């Protein structure tokens, strides 16, 4: 029963993520119109409800919403995965070092992550973005990396602490295996599962954070298309043209739901603590 549910989640999550990835990657070919092109006949084309001409309707500048939703997913995908990849690399390296060597390195890492985690993440992200002269997607990426590595570092550190006491690791060390090799061959494979799970869930959080910051005007700036900034436009026309807000939000929700289901499913499969549950 539990295994079925885990597999169900994995399949549903993978399906949604696959659909989302395919849609955004193939956006230039799938999109029926140019997402940035303002039509010449603007007054006739603006805020058209969903219909045969444009499946999702048009926005206030007469641009095709379906095309914009497809293209907007590229920002979400790039920030979600790109930020997490960099954050995970930093988190794994620092977590390995701290867990393996212990001592002051471990103390320093733990105290630093304590401090970063003492802030509600979006609030600290907003504070960090304020330091820059001008907001933008590049700053969002930098800030999300700066905040995103801490969870993975702690997860890795915890795993390393337990792995390094195991007999086979002790034995390899006694045989004089160099530290780098020891970590790469015996420690890293053991922490891979939890890291993959944490990073998958991190992809979803990054996507939501990017959309939130862009919605607040602190992320993607025009002409970059992001679901978050599309939602900010949509709010203006919520009463008269709700479709402008409905479709980008639906896309964001389904994409994040897919990533979360995938993370849940992977956790059931990879993390022994959740395997019996």
């Amino acid at each position, binding site marked *: 029963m539990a295994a079925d549910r885990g597999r169900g989640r994995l399949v549903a999550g993978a399906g949604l993520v696959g659909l989302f990835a395919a849609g955004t990657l193939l956006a230039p070919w799938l999109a029926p119109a140019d997402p940035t092109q303002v039509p010449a006949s603007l007054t006739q084309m603006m805020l058209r409800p969903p219909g045969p001409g444009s499946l999702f309707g048009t926005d206030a500048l007469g641009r095709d919403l379906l095309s914009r939703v497809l293209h907007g997913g590229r920002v979400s995908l790039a920030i979600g995965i790109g930020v997490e990849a960099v954050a995970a690399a930093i988190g794994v390296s620092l977590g390995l070092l701290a867990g393996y060597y212990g001592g002051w390195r471990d103390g320093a890492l733990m*105290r*630093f992550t*304590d*401090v*970063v985690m*003492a*802030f*509600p*993440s*979006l*609030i*600290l992200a*907003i*504070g*960090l*973005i*304020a*330091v820059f002269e001008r*907001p933008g997607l590049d700053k969002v990426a930098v800030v999300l990396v700066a905040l995103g590595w801490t969870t993975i570092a702690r997860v890795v550190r915890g795993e390393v602490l337990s792995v390094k006491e195991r007999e086979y690791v002790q034995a390899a060390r006694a045989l004089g295996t160099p530290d780098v090799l020891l970590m790469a061959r015996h420690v890293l494979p053991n922490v891979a599962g939890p890291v993959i799970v944490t990073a998958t869930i991190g992809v*979803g959080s990054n996507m*939501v954070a990017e*959309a*939130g910051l862009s*919605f*607040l*005007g*602190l992320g993607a700036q025009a002409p970059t298309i992001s679901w978050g900034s599309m*939602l900010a436009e*949509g*709010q203006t026309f*919520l*009463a008269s043209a*709700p479709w402008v*807000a*409905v479709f980008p*939000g639906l896309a*964001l*929700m389904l994409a*994040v*739901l897919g990533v*979360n*289901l995938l993370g849940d499913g992977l956790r059931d499969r990879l993390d022994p603590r959740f395997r019996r549950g």
Partner: protein
Amino acid sequence: MPGQLTSPYLVADLAEPALRRCLALAPVLFGVSLLVFALTAVALGDPARAMLGQRGDPELVQQIRREYALDAPLHVRYLTWMGRLLQGDLGTSYHQQRPVAEVIAERLPATARLALAATAAAVALGVLAGIAAALRPGSLLDHLLMTTAVIGISTPVFWLGMMLSLLFAVWLGWLPVSGYGDGAWANLVLPALTLGAIHTGTIARLARSSLLEVVRQEYVQTARAKGLGEAWVIGKHALRNALIPVVTVIGIGLADLLVGAPLTETVFAWPGLGRMLVAAVGQRDLPVVMGAVLVFAVIYVGANLLVDLACMTIDPRIRRRGR
């Protein structure tokens, strides 16, 4: 249980771990202050110039530089800043030309009201949904509720807010679209449901699994065997123990509430701290930004401490784990 809470043994038993937990916070708070100080220093550059502009009266610029110890070494500057902070001086807003502490104090009640209402809504709806699902595990209702919970957790809070507003305010006309409405209850409903949504889903899932765990325990079986009615068994015996983990999550969920505050308050034009923070970033009113970030962090750390202490009081196992 209530009898135990007043027992002198418990107070003695609690004092040490509680004190230890408080002391552990000192380095965290020190770190938080260092980080905000560093951000302020980097962001402001020269506050004297920032306050008075490039053509400010040189004498006034000098005076401000002296006051803020701007020419002094970094540690002296930090201590000066910290000294002012401890007296409640968060600096002066560029935009409004009045103390930041005053600006924040004005906005704090609206955010607190929203956060409390969101917590109440999340606990009420989440626990009810959790019980309903757990009473008939595997039923259609169970699947429906738990699917809704998962979707609720994955839905971005600001989009959910817009959709609730579209449904209940624009289409049905039952509730106001946005605004504080001079504190009217009707204005509070949609923002509270929105902000509490992530939380509601988490609580529902936890309440369900926790209750299912508890009903398998022997004492519940015994209660049933004694011939007690199902409502009595669940309400009196099972629920009480099932809710302990829920209490923990209520506290942890406060993080979600604070994270969601800027977004929810922006969607509903709610005059709270979160919306003020976003506006201040737009106006580049950096003293207000850093003041708000600091206040959010202190509230967050304080709330987490309270939750830990509450858990220690409820569950003796947690108390002993600290040793």
